[in-house]
């Protein structure tokens, strides 16, 4: 595949962003490769109802 890009004038007035989070990027410029990965685990077992017990510490 051929990928031809013409970068003409690029001018932005104002950027308003609340949050850049969990392996994200806000880039003013060029990049060659970008790899962003994020995992978020909250399965049913994550909801624990009962007496408060500490998580298993480092043994």
């Amino acid at each position, binding site marked *: *595949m*051929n*990928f*031809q*890009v*013409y*970068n*003409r*004038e*690029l*001018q*932005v*007035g*104002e*950027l*308003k*962003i*609340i*949050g*850049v*989070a*969990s*392996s*994200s*990027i*806000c*880039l*003013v*410029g*060029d*990049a*060659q*490769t*970008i*790899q*962003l*990965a*994020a*995992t*978020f*685990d*909250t399965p*049913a*077992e*994550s*909801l*624990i*109802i*009962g*007496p*408060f*017990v*500490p*998580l*298993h*510490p*480092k*043994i």
Partner: protein
Amino acid sequence: MLQRTSVVDKLSVNVVSFSSTVEIGDVTYYQALSRALAVQRQRELFYGTEGHFKNYSVFSEPIVLPPITERVESHFENLKPIIKVQHINITGVSSASLLQVGNCRHLYSEARIKHIRQLEQTVNTPVGENLIQLNAPSQLDIVTSESPVSVTGTDITESEISDNVSNNQEPSSTQNDE
């Protein structure tokens, strides 16, 4: 490629946290990793030394990137050598994120989050299929005396729940062994 100059007149950021970066200038390699155990408890309680990433697979499982099979011939023509932004206003940059003014050749970033919620058990709450009944801290083989916060908050021995818990002691301990 990567020959354009970035110009930002004004940059305001409030918070940069947890393996995040604000980069002004060019970068060849950027790599960031953030791991988080997010525990929400109904009551304000933290035991101090608890939690270990090795106990949760989300922190060790491989993240498979889709393979690039197609060969791409790229050609860039930068007719204007400047990228211009007058004002950037960002409230927060967090968890292995990047805010950059400039060029970045290779970028890899990874964020892994395990989210756990703990709710207090009321006396007559039935334990559903999805919910795990837990033992009292004294029944676990964890040394809690060293914790900076006392565990008297979970004193259930004198409450009404204690009957409930001791009745369920047999099945719940087998659950924990799993």
